[in-house]
Structure formats: structure tokens, C-alpha cells
């Protein structure tokens, strides 16, 4: 390992697809900003994609001091090989001290590939990031054991210190129109034969992409909803609230909802302001996926359902009556 002091600056990877950024990159800029200030170092946004100069400018308006962009047709859609090569090339050239990546599927695909090639440490799916007072290292905090245990992890003798960070846990900062910073274009190209995977087709099972990770309100149903048809009650409530529909694993297994809606350990990890758990008993695998929610509202007929242990507001009752009543109550409030 070369001298640790050669490594400077905090980098945030801004994930894009077809030239559009995912929110988590901007969220990370907001959490990294005070850390960069504390260290007295610049905060650099790294954007890899196709037609992304606008994203780089946005990243600066969201708090980055400068941006490094790698633009090319091979980055329009994510591939492990192309993105890993681009990121590793950048790290080797610029030597950042810290690299943060959003813990999306693609971020968690690329992160370990990059850290392994660089032979450095990577902490997965963090929900807290601080600077260790004693050493100045980044202290990455993350849930393990399905959220039953929190661990704080450091990478003392290798650089960059890398972490993937859970989407939705941190909020985006204010967009400062007119904020400027240097945008460096790096020409890194990956030959087609170096990319060993091919996107054959993208199949949408639902009309619109379900963006559970970035949803502010989620209305989620479990086995207790009883049937696919009965999800209509939840759809009404979701429509009233402008919420995204979620569900537990049992619902996907029963074929009532597509997998894209699934919340929990084998589905999406979410962090909404309001999470409605309707007819969800609260298996630990489900709870692991909702621990980042600000407020949980549970409806269940079983008074002893574990979901009530994590709910801020719980209603014990028949969801066929309670859910329409909630829809009506929210509607009345607006009127």
C-alpha cells in the first residue's frame, strides 16, 4: 500500500441510467458535505454514464465542489465490467481518501468489484457515516443480523475507505442554483469485448417503475390482505396519499403482486416518511427492510402481531373496514 497521506478528498458516486441520476447520489453529497468541511477537503462528485454533463452540474448545485465525469455510449446502461474499469481507473489516478456509493442493486454490484480490485475495505449498506475523532477515519455504521445489531466499521490502513450507503436514509440538500465548480472530463473507454454481460431485454411487469427506495409514503400489504383483488383497498389509500404500493414477501409468493413491489430482506430496503403496514405480521425479514422508516402505521387484526412492536401508530382491527376508513379520514382532512 502506498502512503495513506497520498489519498485526499471525499468522492461521491452519482449513479445514472440513460443520463438520469438516482436520488441517492445527491443524498450522499448532503451527508458527505459536513464531513468534507470537517476534513477541510473538497467534495467531488463522480458521474459515469451517457450524456451526463447536466447531472454533473446538478451535483455541484447539490453541494459538490467539483465533478469528474466519464461519458460514453458504453455507460448508458450499467454493466459491472465497464463501470468497475472506469471507477478503478479514476481512483488510481486521483487517489481519493473516501468513496461513497449508493447501496442500490447496481451500487452493491459495482462496490465490491471495485474495492476488491483495489484491495481495500468496503462497508456495505451503511445507515450512518461519521468521522472517528481519534483517528480521523470514516466510521461507517450499518445494520446486521437483519437489523438486530448495529456495527461501526473502519478501514484504518487502506485507501480509499469505501462504503455503500442505503438510499433514502439521508435527505437531499437544497439545490443551489448558480453554484459553480470545475467539471473534469476523463476519457475512459471500454471495448465491447471487455464487457462480458449483455442486456438482452428489459421487461417491465408493471406500467411504471416502482421506486420504493425513494418513496416518501408507502402503503404496504401483507398476507392479511387476503387476495389480489383486495389490494384495491390499499390502492385507494395509496392514491389518496400519493403513496407507492409495497408488499411483503408472502404476497409475492401468493402471486398477488409482482416482485418489484416487495419490501424486506429479499426485496427492497425502504426509508419513507410514512410506512403503512396493512395486514403485515412483521416477520424479521420484513422489519429489516423498513427500519429506516420515520413513522410506521400498522393495521392488523392480531393484537400480538410483532409489527405493533415497531409501529408508532397501530390499529387493531379488520383491515377491510379500517383501510377504507383511513382513506375516508385522509380525504376528509383535505376537504
Amino acid at each position, binding site marked *: 500500500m502506498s502512503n495513506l497521506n497520498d489519498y485526499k478528498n471525499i468522492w461521491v458516486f452519482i449513479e445514472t441510467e440513460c443520463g438520469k441520476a438516482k436520488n441517492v447520489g445527491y443524498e450522499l453529497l448532503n451527508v458527505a458535505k459536513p464531513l468534507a468541511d470537517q476534513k477541510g477537503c473538497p467534495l467531488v462528485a463522480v458521474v459515469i454514464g451517457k450524456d451526463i454533463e447536466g447531472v454533473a452540474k446538478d451535483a455541484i448545485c447539490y453541494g459538490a465542489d467539483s465533478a469528474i465525469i466519464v461519458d460514453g455510449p458504453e455507460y448508458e446502461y450499467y454493466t459491472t*465490467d465497464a463501470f468497475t474499469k472506469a471507477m478503478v481507473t479514476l481512483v488510481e489516478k486521483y487517489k481519493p481518501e473516501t468513496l461513497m456509493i449508493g447501496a442500490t442493486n447496481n451500487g452493491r454490484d459495482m462496490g465490491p468489484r471495485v*474495492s476488491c480490485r483495489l484491495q481495500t475495505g468496503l462497508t456495505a449498506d451503511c445507515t450512518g457515516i461519521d468521522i472517528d475523532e481519534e483517528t480521523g477515519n470514516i466510521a461507517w455504521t450499518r445494520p446486521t443480523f437483519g437489523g438486530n445489531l448495529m456495527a461501526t466499521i473502519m478501514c484504518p490502513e487502506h485507501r480509499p475507505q469505501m462504503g455503500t450507503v442505503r438510499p433514502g436514509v439521508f435527505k437531499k440538500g437544497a439545490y443551489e442554483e448558480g453554484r459553480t465548480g470545475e467539471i473534469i472530463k476523463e476519457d475512459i473507454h471500454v471495448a465491447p469485448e471487455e464487457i462480458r454481460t449483455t442486456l438482452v431485454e428489459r421487461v417491465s411487469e408493471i406500467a411504471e417503475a416502482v421506486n420504493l427506495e425513494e418513496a416518501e409514503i408507502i402503503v404496504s400489504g401483507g398476507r392479511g390482505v387476503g387476495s389480489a383483488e383486495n389490494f384495491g383497498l390499499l390502492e385507494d389509500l395509496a392514491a389518496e396519499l400519493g403513496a407507492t404500493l409495497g408488499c411483503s414477501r408472502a404476497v409475492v409468493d401468493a402471486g398477488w403482486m409482482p416482485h418489484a413491489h416487495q419490501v424486506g430482506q429479499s426485496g427492497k430496503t425502504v426509508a419513507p416518511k410514512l410506512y403503512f403496514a396493512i395486514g403485515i405480521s412483521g416477520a424479521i425479514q420484513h422489519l429489516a427492510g423498513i427500519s429506516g422508516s420515520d413513522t410506521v402505521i400498522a393495521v392488523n387484526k392480531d393484537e400480538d402481531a410483532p409489527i405493533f412492536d415497531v409501529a408508532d401508530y397501530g390499529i387493531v382491527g*379488520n383491515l377491510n373496514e379500517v383501510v377504507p376508513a383511513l382513506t375516508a379520514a385522509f380525504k376528509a382532512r383535505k376537504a
Partner: protein
Amino acid sequence: MNICVCMKQVPDTNEIKVDPETHTLVRKGVPSIVNPFDTYAQEVGVRLKEQLGGKLIVISMGPEQAKEAIKSCLAVGADNGYLISSRNFGGSDTLATSYILSEAIKAVEEKEGLKFDLILCGKQATDGDTAQVGPEIAEHLDLPQITYALDIVEKDGEIQVKREYDAGYDMISTRLPAVVTVVKLPYEPRYPTIKSKMAAKKKEIPVLTEEDIPSIKLELCGLNGSPTRVKKTYTPVREKSGVKLAGMEAADAANEVVKLLEEAKLL
């Protein structure tokens, strides 16, 4: 198609409790299981093997006790199993673990006299929840990877993998050999029969230490090979105490919750 399944024995997180006094995890008496995501990797592997022929080998790094988990994989279709175990491997983070496994995979290929076409892992272990070991094995072996798989089919000597995507799935193809991590399948893993359980029980599980993996560099194993350090662990404290409304008319309960949300400025 020769397949290697990398499996981890994990505590059954359904059974884990937090001691209310000490705020530490109570692990005593908690049963060990095959990591649930690895049971999917194993099942899709067995189906591919049944369809295409070849061997399915399961490997696991862990203590002696993990032989039990290997045996439960043998009972549902794995041909052979190897335990990777040594004091020198203890304390490994994901980088060191994936290094040891990747070296063990090469050693197992030697022992079995075959080359693996496909290396399967669960998307993550339910104790560590990192989802890093699969991609890191792929990196150590310089193989293509597809993560978050929902199904795998073989087509003209390549594989096509349904990969989880926000609105459905991406169909991604890759040549072999490759590493795939599995999140879920359209079917449930099979159950063992009494006969298959008995046969698995009798089977010898070879233990591979560094002595059996000639190419392994010990400085890359265990704590020495681990860039990350756990500074501290703690159990999350729930600060909020919830309001539970029971025995109320649906409309009253709904109105009350909306009122409470409003008072708490959550709307």
C-alpha cells in the same frame, strides 16, 4: 454444467432475541440454518444440473459445525461438499473471505478433476447482510458476474439471468464461467426425503485447510488480509413507544390516527 455453490451456515435470525438488560444479542441456543438465499442458489443449481448434467459441489467456510449445513445441501441434490476451515481463516472480512473461497474453488476443481462453469451464491448472508462476497469471488477469479438473480436458464452454452429491476426484470446474458448471486426464485427449494437425508448423513465431508489449498497466501487471510475492522457493535434502541388503538370502531380509530399524525406534524 459443473456448478459450485458457496454456502454459509447462519444463525436463524427469526430466533434471535435481544437481551433487554444487556442489550446484546442472545445467540445461545439459536439454531443454525443454511443461509436462506443460499438455498435458492442451491436449488437453481440443482435444476440446471438435472437438465444439463455435470456435478454440483457445495463449499462452505466456517467451523466444524458447518458440516451439518453442507449435509443438508447434499440431501437436496449436491453431489459433494467441502468445508473450508482453519484458525488462520478466522476473523476474515469479506475481502479475505472471498479470497479464501476463490482459492478453495481452484483447489476443489483440482480435487474433483473438473472446471466449474457456474459459481452460485445467495445474494447475501442473513447474518452479515453485506452481499459482497459473491462479487468479490468473481473479481478474484476474474469472472463476469450477475447479481440479484431471480432465475437462471441456459441457452446455447451461455446463461440468461433474470436480474431484479425496479419495474420488473432485466434479462442479462453472459458467457461461462460466471458468478451469479441469487435473490429469489419463481419456485421453492425442494425438501429432502428420508432416504436422501440418510445418504447425506453418511457422506464424508472433506475439510480443506491452507495445507490443502497450495496457492493460498496466508497474509491475505483472516485478520491480516482484512482491511476493515469492527470498531463497535450495539443493539439499536427503540426510542419511540407506539400508540395502539384496539377495540374501536374502524372510523373512530382511523380518525384518531389521522389526528395524531397531524398533531405530530407528520402529514
